[in-house]
């Protein structure tokens, strides 16, 4: 009997609480929608109010404007007349300088003393070259002769010497053979000597004569070779001196050329310097033609600061407006929240009382308990 009562009341309490909660939620949702609409309106107001409005600057050089979308219209351009004036001035100056330098170069090229000196040096150089070539030729010839196959020359000398000796040697050999025959030793040949010992002695004598002639021929050939080598050396030395003189001449010519080149280089350096100066002037002139634009831009910078200040005030007012709107909405939410909280607490306590709680002895409190106890008594 008590469970049934208990449940019955419990369900009734719960139904009552749900109903109260749904009602509070509906009220809060409505208030939220209202606040959303208010805040959207507030945002639109802030957006509209904070937009850039643009500004303009007007000077003697021109009228410059900055649009609300940030676009800039300088209203002032490059002053080409300035550049043209400078170009005219540079052309005149460069032409004059070039003419002067060219005249200087012409004067250098046409220097008669230098030309004559160079010619004389060329003549002298050629003569020295010819002499040097001749000396070198002679030196080479003697060198070649000194480097000839000494064996051939030695052989030639030897042949000449032996040709002179040959009749004597032949006579000596014939006499020896006659002696050999007279001694009864003709026709004898032994392994030790090829013939007889006398034949060998004659052969040795001939060989010695040949050896002497050979050594003499070698010495003569060596002397000739030395002589030719000395001549080659002398001619080579002369050729070397010619080469040195020619080298000196070439050095002088080279110095002359170097000096001429230095002058030419100087001329070109002057020309380059003049060009640089003209270029600098042109550059300066180029810079000057942008001066009006620079001045206009500086004015625009000044105007920009003013525009910034105006924009700042606009944005500050919008800040205040949105802050106030947001604060009101927050206050409203907080008040609704408190009210709902109070109602919730109320429902909660009511329900707790209708249902009661079970104690240790199994009994219930509250309305349930009450009813239980009633029932128990009745029961």
């Amino acid at each position, binding site marked *: 009997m008590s469970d049934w009562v208990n449940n019955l009341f419990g369900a009734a309490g719960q139904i009552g609480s749900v109903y109260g909660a749904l009602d509070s939620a509906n009220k809060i949702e409505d208030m939220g929608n209202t606040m959303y609409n208010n805040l959207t309106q507030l945002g639109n107001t802030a957006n509209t109010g904070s937009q850039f409005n643009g500004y303009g600057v007007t000077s003697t050089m021109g009228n410059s404007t900055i649009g609300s979308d940030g676009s800039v219209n300088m209203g002032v351009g490059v002053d080409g007349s300035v550049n043209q004036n400078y170009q005219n001035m540079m052309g005149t100056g460069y032409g004059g300088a070039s003419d002067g330098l060219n005249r200087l170069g012409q004067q250098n090229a046409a220097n008669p003393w230098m030309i004559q000196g160079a010619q004389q040096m060329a003549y002298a150089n050629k003569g020295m070259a010819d002499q040097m070539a001749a000396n070198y030729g002679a030196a080479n010839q003697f060198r070649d002769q000194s480097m000839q196959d000494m064996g051939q020359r030695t052989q030639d000398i030897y042949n000449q010497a032996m040709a002179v000796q040959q009749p004597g040697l032949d006579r000596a050999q014939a006499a020896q053979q006659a002696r050999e*025959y007279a*001694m*009864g*030793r*003709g*026709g*004898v*040949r*032994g*392994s*030790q*000597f*090829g*013939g*007889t*010992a*006398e034949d060998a002695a004659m052969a040795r004598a001939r060989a010695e004569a040949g050896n002497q002639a050979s050594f003499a021929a070698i010495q003569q050939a060596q002397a000739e070779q030395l002589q030719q080598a000395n001549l080659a050396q002398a001619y080579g030395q002369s050729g070397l001196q010619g080469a040195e003189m020619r080298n000196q001449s070439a050095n002088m010519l080279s110095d002359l050329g170097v000096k001429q080149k230095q002058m030419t280089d100087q001329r070109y350096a002057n020309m380059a310097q003049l060009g640089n100066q003209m270029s600098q002037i042109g550059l300066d002139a180029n810079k000057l033609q942008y001066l009006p634009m620079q001045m206009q831009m500086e004015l625009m910078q000044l105007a920009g600061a003013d525009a910034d200040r105006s924009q700042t005030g606009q944005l500050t007012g919008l800040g205040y407006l949105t802050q106030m709107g947001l604060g009101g909405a927050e206050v409203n939410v907080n008040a609704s929240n408190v009210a709902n909280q109070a109602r919730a607490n109320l429902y909660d306590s009511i329900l707790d009382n209708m249902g009661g709680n079970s104690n240790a002895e199994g009994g219930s409190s509250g309305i349930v308990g009450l009813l239980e106890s009633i029932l128990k008594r009745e029961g």
Partner: protein
Amino acid sequence: MQPLQQVSIPAPGGQGLNTELTPFQTQTEFALRADNAVVDRIGRLASREAFADYITDSDIQTPAYGGYDVVRMASVEVDDWIPPSHAPLTAAEYGEAEYLLSEWNGDGLTRSLVQVEKDPSEYNAAEYGESEYMGESNTTRVRDVVFGLVATGSFESADANKNGYGLSEYGEGEYSLAGAVGSVKPTEYVGFAIDSGRLRQVSNIRPSHGRTNAQLVPYKDSVFVFSKGDPAMFYYNGLAEKVSEHPDYSPPQDDNGVIAQELDGDIACAAYGRLWVSGVGGNYDTVYYSDLLVPYQWYDGKATPDDAQNTAGIIDVREYWPSGNDKIQGIAAHNGYLIIFGRHSILIYSGAQGDPAGEGGLKLEDAIRDVGLVNQDAMCNIGSDHLFVDSLGVRSLGRVIQEKSTPLGEPSMNVSSTIRRLIAENRDTVRLTHLKSKSMAVCLFPELELAYAFQLGQPSMSGGYRVTRWTDCDWYDGITVRTNREDLTLLGGRNSRGVLQYGGYKQPNPYTFSYESAVLNPGGNLMQSIVPKTMSYSFECDGDSDLTALWGFGADLRYDRKVRHKASSSSDNFKTSRVSLNGSGEMLRVGFDAVITGEELSMQQISINTMMGRTIL
């Protein structure tokens, strides 16, 4: 009638044969005939020694119905040991040291030069070599000492009938070998060595020539064989090969190449430590001589000789022939000279010792013309002289040298007319041999089987050597072999007789010792006839002699009568036998024929009892 006169001929023919006497000369010292005789040691005419059989056994391969002649012999000196040789070792199966060549003599007998005799020891040399049993066996190890050449061929039958039918057609049964008589017709020459009593064939040596145009030259311990156109060969104790096959052989050469690959000459000599050869390549104007004691090294004329010590060389003698041209016939050495014989010239060189081409070397001492050598075998050295056969006879080189261009030395002057004819008819075959131990030089005419024996030593009273004539000389060559026991005079037998020994007095066929005197004229008057009555022969003979007395008047000894000997009453071998004579004439000549059958016979004296007849008016 006048009384008997006695004519005595002491030592008849004691001066030898003299064919140059006229029949009217009464020099009884000379003989007009002295066949198979010699002059003995006391100047008597005596029978020569026999050509006795000595070595008849052989393994010489001869043709059927043929035989062999020993045509040449040479010997090396006998040593008790085998000295180091220049020759390579023999390729014998058992080496020289352990087994000798004599080991297979079959009967275990000691090897001997020419004889077979029992060895005194238990172990003889045949079985065990000297190296093992030296001193105990008391054996003498002997090398092959004698080397020679034999000519083999068929017998030339002397029977005309047999010749007509020929041996080949009618076989041995019908015409036996004994019927094939005559001389061997040489078809081949082959070497041999005397080995233990037989002739051992040396088949490796087969020269093209033997009887002529060949020479055997003993040199060092080998025998060199030179034959015309054949490579020189040598024989050393069983080893026989070409000189050019010796490992150290160096042919004559110069920078133009080899002059002669082979020493193929046939004129050769060994002297002064070298071999001297001519006829190389058919050139008989040149003599090649070997290196000193190195018979394999010859002339090396290259600029850089293979052997710097080589002293071999060449002698070209063309420019020294005194008569413009000649041909080398022989080379000899005598008394320090080198003698080069031409056909009609003699070149005498000194300084052949040492290096002939060196200073003080070979030098022509003399060139003699119109005296020469008939062939290379017709000369011999007798120690004190060198004899050679010229067309004029046997000449003495010593005397030629002494007398130079007027050579009068003529040992054969006692038989000059006779021997000159023989020489002219037998120029290529005549030989002159020195029988050293007999002190004789024998000039042999092999084709005639005839020889003249010159007694060396004291010459005859005419100045020529005492000479006798030998018949039945069935031999070609004679050498003297000096052994430890004796000096053997060996002869190269013909008709398969083998090697003969000149010794004793017994030949297979008895020979006749003959004598004929010159004219005897006891009255000294050729106008008075002589009537010989008896003749007594006093002779010395060990046994019975078969003596026949000969006498006659003039050129022919037409009377002959057997001499009857008295019965010998004593052991005395000195005998006198008498024979009665008959006939008469003006020029009495006497003589005898003594058939020698084993004993020597020396004629001491012939005595004649004669009566002088009437004077021819």
